[in-house]
């Protein structure tokens, strides 16, 4: 059985005309989910509800009530996001919450006519970059099951790669949309901080958490984002953009094939008439320290009660990270918040005169599951630190950022570049991404 990897934008007119049936699309996705259970992409498959929603969509469309490009299209939702009547497990053995209402983002997707096919697996409580610490089994990379699919939204990326859905909802606190998108060779968008509500989403770090779409193309991301925002999108399409490449810190320790992919992208942009210049983000080397002193105490605060009653139910690594946050002094948390303001200004300054920043999304291709460290251009480094290094600054700063495929390594592993836009200008960033994707 081959996967239907057509895009939402290609399917939408066919669904509208009746040439493609939402019920058949949903059945095909369910068949794909059933075909590869060993990947652990889903925690809950909403089989009966999804088929009922698809039948309803088909009836509405047949009656001339087409709601838009997501109508009748199967999508998945990370199991950190509430769906009424379905447990929100967060990938944990800690007792789940049982929501009686959809998260507002899910409500908006339903209003757009999307068929919710199920809830995807993740790194427990979104507190990891490999999706291997999950009470529902490690998410496996479809290209090689000994490798990670990235995380924490690993199940979402696998579901898209394998044709188990056509769009997915992920969350991103340090890179959890962009990292699995990069590992799996799809597209992922982290909007500007606060642009999409995180109400009804289990928090990891309330001042760093973002929610956003994942899909197989920029055009599909735009459809998903518009529905999640509940508004139409408008952007200026131009033929020439200025990109700033932050060389220091972001391009220093990369897998050689990732470096080569960035260079290829740069050359392609230049040939297409765009301008690419080198820029600097001041103090970027302090990013991991600032991130750690914000994410750890904020995560520990949320889990304090459960750590007191159910500590043994957490995966050992997640529990230790949560425990670590309890030791951070208030003085250092406040210091990190002030440095965050400095870093946000530094990103703004780097963007001056540029339309977007261009940098790699991830320094390495898919890491091997179970490995604590990875070789990066001849140096052994902790996997978690390497995977967060290029994405976490934009959670700290709140700027919109997206991961896009940029070819493969010599071994065929996907490589990704990241575009970072001006604060509050996610639509403009989407326009730039759409232009260069072409």
């Amino acid at each position: 059985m081959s996967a239907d990897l057509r895009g939402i934008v290609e399917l939408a007119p066919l669904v509208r005309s009746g040439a493609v049936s939402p019920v058949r699309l949903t059945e095909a996705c369910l068949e794909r989910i059933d075909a590869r259970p060993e990947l652990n992409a889903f925690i809950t498959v909403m089989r009966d509800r999804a088929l009922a929603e698809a039948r309803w969509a088909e009836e509405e469309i047949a009656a001339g009530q087409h709601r838009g490009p997501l109508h009748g299209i199967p999508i998945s939702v990370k199991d950190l996001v509430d769906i009424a009547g379905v447990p929100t497990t967060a990938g944990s053995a800690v007792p789940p919450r049982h929501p009686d209402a959809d998260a507002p983002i899910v409500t908006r997707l339903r209003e757009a006519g999307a068929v919710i096919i199920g809830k995807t697996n993740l790194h427990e409580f979104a507190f990891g970059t490999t999706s291997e610490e999950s009470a529902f089994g490690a998410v496996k990379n479809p290209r090689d099951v000994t490798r990670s699919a990235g995380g924490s939204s690993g199940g979402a990326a696998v579901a898209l790669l394998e044709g188990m859905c056509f769009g997915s909802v992920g969350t991103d606190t340090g890179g959890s949309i962009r990292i699995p998108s990069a590992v799996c060779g799809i597209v992922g968008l982290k909007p500007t901080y606060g642009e999409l509500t995180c109400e009804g989403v289990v928090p990891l770090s309330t001042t760093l958490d973002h929610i956003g779409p994942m899909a197989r193309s920029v055009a599909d991301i735009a459809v998903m984002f518009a529905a999640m925002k509940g508004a139409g999108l408008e952007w200026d399409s131009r033929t020439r953009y200025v990109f700033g490449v932050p060389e220091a810190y972001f391009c220093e320790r990369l897998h050689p094939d990732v470096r080569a992919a960035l260079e290829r992208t740069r050359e392609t942009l230049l040939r297409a008439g765009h301008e690419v210049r080198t820029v600097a983000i001041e103090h970027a080397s302090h990013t991991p320290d600032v991130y750690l002193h914000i994410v750890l105490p904020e995560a520990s605060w949320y889990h304090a009660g459960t750590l007191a009653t159910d500590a043994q139910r957490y995966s050992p690594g997640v529990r230790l990270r949560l425990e670590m946050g309890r030791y951070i002094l208030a003085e250092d948390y406040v210091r990190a918040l002030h440095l965050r303001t400095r870093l946000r200004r530094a990103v703004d300054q780097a963007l001056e005169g540029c339309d977007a920043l261009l940098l790699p999304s991830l320094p390495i291709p898919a890491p091997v599951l179970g490995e604590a460290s990875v070789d990066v251009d001849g140096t052994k480094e902790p996997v978690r630190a390497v995977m967060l290094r290029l994405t976490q600054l934009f959670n700290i700063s709140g700027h919109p950022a997206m991961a896009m495929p940029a070819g493969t390594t010599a071994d065929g592993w996907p490589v990704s570049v990241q575009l970072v836009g001006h604060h509050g200008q996610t639509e403009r960033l989407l326009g730039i991404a759409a232009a260069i994707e072409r």
Partner: protein
Amino acid sequence: MTIETWLTAACEDAERRGLAELKPLLEALARSTAALRDADRFIDRAMLEK
């Protein structure tokens, strides 16, 4: 509180709570905290006081 004092107290507390495996993580955190405190000079205090 100095980082040395903090680290000693944190490691003792972790051990008392049966979480000795936290010790290397706390040592790594201490290095990160030292770097964070070193970066304190980049905070624009004039802007904070406005």
